[in-house]
């Protein structure tokens, strides 16, 4: 056992990815064995349509977690971004055809960016704790959104939205393509740019980063801006998939996104964690949800299974972490 642990450690951060892929394969095999018809095409494509929303929100949570913070406003930021886009499209572009789509995307992204930027400015320059700032932002957005929609849905988007929500390119669902592009972009930002490097360092020891010449404030603003843009993208994707926006949609994703980050090995105190294990961890969660669904279990039981799964993984991980100390 000990030598196995040591060998695993030698893999370093690649080990995290290997472990997550192992978990994914195990859960696929498990449900393949117990859920009838699991390997049939429709199951996988339904997963590929559902995963991206949660996935984008988890990415939006991941970047702040690496910086030693948290963004509790991800779901409502996505809602509001979708809402603003929906309002605009309904008011001016209902008959504009495909043009409505890039406009909606631009509005969604800029709205998410603005929300994230505001959080970043407050965290960086006021020095308030990110949990408090983003919690405040979440409640603010929720109140505004419910006021603007009177608690109802905004629906009736042009048909072109459905092609994004349900379309496929070469058999791959468009939302999945969007998600994979976002994963690649985030992985590149975090792992292959000086800005990403700085985010890990700020998350690890802000004072040491400052003394090393890293602009900690600018880095934090960037962190929450990127996070905000990802929520904007998620908002548009949700709008396209449901052809409507309701404030509060995806509310239950919030804690799942945080847990998915920790599941993938992100350090709760910042400074450590990789994007690819997160993407794989999310796929495992989706496999579990779809597998349970296929077996006729209720949605709620699937949520319970996620919880059990997360606890299990944490328990298995514990000895590896101890080795690292």
């Amino acid at each position, binding site marked *: 056992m000990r030598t196995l642990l040591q060998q695993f450690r030698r893999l370093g951060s690649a080990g995290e990815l290997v472990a997550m892929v192992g978990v994914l394969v195990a859960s696929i095999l498990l449900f393949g064995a117990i859920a009838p018809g699991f390997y049939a095409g429709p199951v996988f494509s339904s997963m590929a349509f559902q995963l991206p929303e949660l996935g984008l929100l988890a990415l939006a949570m991941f970047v702040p977690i690496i910086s030693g913070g948290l963004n509790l406003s991800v779901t409502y930021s996505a809602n509001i971004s979708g809402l603003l886009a929906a309002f605009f499209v309904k008011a001016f572009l209902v008959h504009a055809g495909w043009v409505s789509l890039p406009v909606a995307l631009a509005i969604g992204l800029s709205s998410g960016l603005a929300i994230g930027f505001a959080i970043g400015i407050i965290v960086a320059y006021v020095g308030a704790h990110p949990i408090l700032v983003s919690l405040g932002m979440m409640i603010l957005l929720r109140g505004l959104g419910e006021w603007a929609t009177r608690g109802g849905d905004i629906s009736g988007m042009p048909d072109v939205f459905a092609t994004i929500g349900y379309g496929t390119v070469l058999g791959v669902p468009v939302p999945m393509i969007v998600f994979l592009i976002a994963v690649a972009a985030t992985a590149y930002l975090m792992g292959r740019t000086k800005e990403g490097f700085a985010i890990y360092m700020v998350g690890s*020891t802000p004072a040491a980063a400052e003394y090393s010449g890293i602009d900690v404030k600018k880095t934090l603003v960037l962190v929450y801006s990127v996070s905000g843009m990802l929520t904007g993208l998620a908002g548009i994707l949700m709008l396209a998939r449901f052809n409507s926006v309701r404030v509060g949609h995806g509310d239950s994703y919030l804690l799942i996104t945080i847990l998915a980050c920790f599941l993938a090995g992100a350090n709760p105190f910042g400074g450590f964690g990789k994007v690819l294990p997160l993407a794989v961890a999310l796929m495992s969660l989706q496999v579990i949800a779809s597998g349970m669904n296929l077996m006729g279990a209720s949605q709620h039981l699937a949520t319970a299974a996620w919880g059990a799964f997360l606890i299990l993984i944490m328990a298995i991980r514990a000895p590896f972490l101890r080795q690292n100390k």
Partner: protein
Amino acid sequence: MSVGAFPMTQMALRARAVSKRFGNVLALDDVAFDLERGEVHCLVGENGCGKSTLIKAISGVYVPTPGASFQFGDDPPVSKISPAEAKARGIHVIWQDLSLFPDLSVGYNIIFDAFVERPFALSERKVALQRARRTMEDLGVSLDLDMPLRHLGIAQRQLVAICRVLQTEASIIFMDEPTASLTRTETENLLDIVRKLSARGISIVFVSHRLGEVLEVCSRVTVMRDGRIVGTFPAEGMNQKRLAELMTGHEFLDSRREWTSPGAPVLQLDGLTVPGQFQDVSFTLHRGEILGLTGLLGSGRTELAHAIFGMTRPESGRILIDGAPVSLRSNRDAIENGIAYVSEDRLNLGLHQTQSILKNTAITTLRELSSPSFYLGPESIRTLCTEWIGRLRTKVSDPSLPVNSLSGGNQQRVVLAKWLATRPKVLILDSPTVGVDVGAKAEIFRIVNELTAEGMAIILISDEANEIHAHSDRILIMRNGRITKDLQPGDMAEEDLEALINA
């Protein structure tokens, strides 16, 4: 209790054939260690020589390899000690981190152990606190028992830790680098207390890298190297140089720096003032020069360094680099202008302790590493890191390991590497040898001398008079935020410098 109430030669501990193996490493190799009752015994050696392992074997943390023997006083020898037995025999260890509770009051920190054993003894806390007060009075310590510990400085916390172990019967106290972060006055106070404890018949084992104070406080000194005992020597007749040689196993040449004529001015300060920190500081630093900057803690020397590094903005005065005035809005501007600062606080500010050696080396040169494209590749980071590991002869088995897996001296080389990678004109070294053992110290100054030969200008901040005296071309003494003396080390003896600093 007075000195001489017991015969001085009585043995407190006789340890024999103590060995301990971790994997392939023999951390302790057939060690014999004697401790007399009431003696102050120093344990010295380079990092990784086995001092901590020996302490842990005696205090019951580690079980030694079978065959060891420990004899306490006249009791029959035992082959190993459990933590409970160690406690019952009054063996205590005060580790460098002190293991205190920042949010508890001083009083509760002192009486903490009593409540660990009997958690429901809360009704007795008044009695316990009174005893804590008596302990403090006996030692001549005055601290507010109700004050939260976190308001105390490291020196006072040290005293709290000592009072804490004195709440139960103490026969042997191990102190792990207790003076590492204390000022001279604080060190003197602590050494006084150590003497008081020894006068009560408590044996003190004192671990320190500061060889001067080692010889000052102890009666005998045991030197360890590579898991073995080199020897135990009386402090009388021993000197620092000899100790250093015993610890490292090689000879040190008397390494006073050769004075070289300075080159062109590179950094000039002109009436620099940060209110409340320092006033009207002016000096000129030349290429290839080492300027020693010293003074007591609070004299404003670190604050001055922060201002030169752009971390604080002066209210008045000018900083000139190569003759041109510069405005430093942040340390990024300072780095851009060729100024680098090795912080005195390597643990919290100098390095990202849990991050890899690779990342710690690359952090200051991210822009160069990722230009002209936006791509910051792991290959370029590795190349940079490998280059500096080679140039500074850093002992690294794998650069992707966390930097805190290295010894103090090698960590300091990583700090040097990350700053040298910025190709500075001026390198500020703030207490560069804190927590660095004697062999590594010599290596660091070897590197520094090479740098000055290439034309780099160095500001060396230290409160160790011998370091400043041996390695500076010029010495400035600061006091209350002003430069009070401008000296040439060649003109004076080290002792005179020490007297001037403390005057």
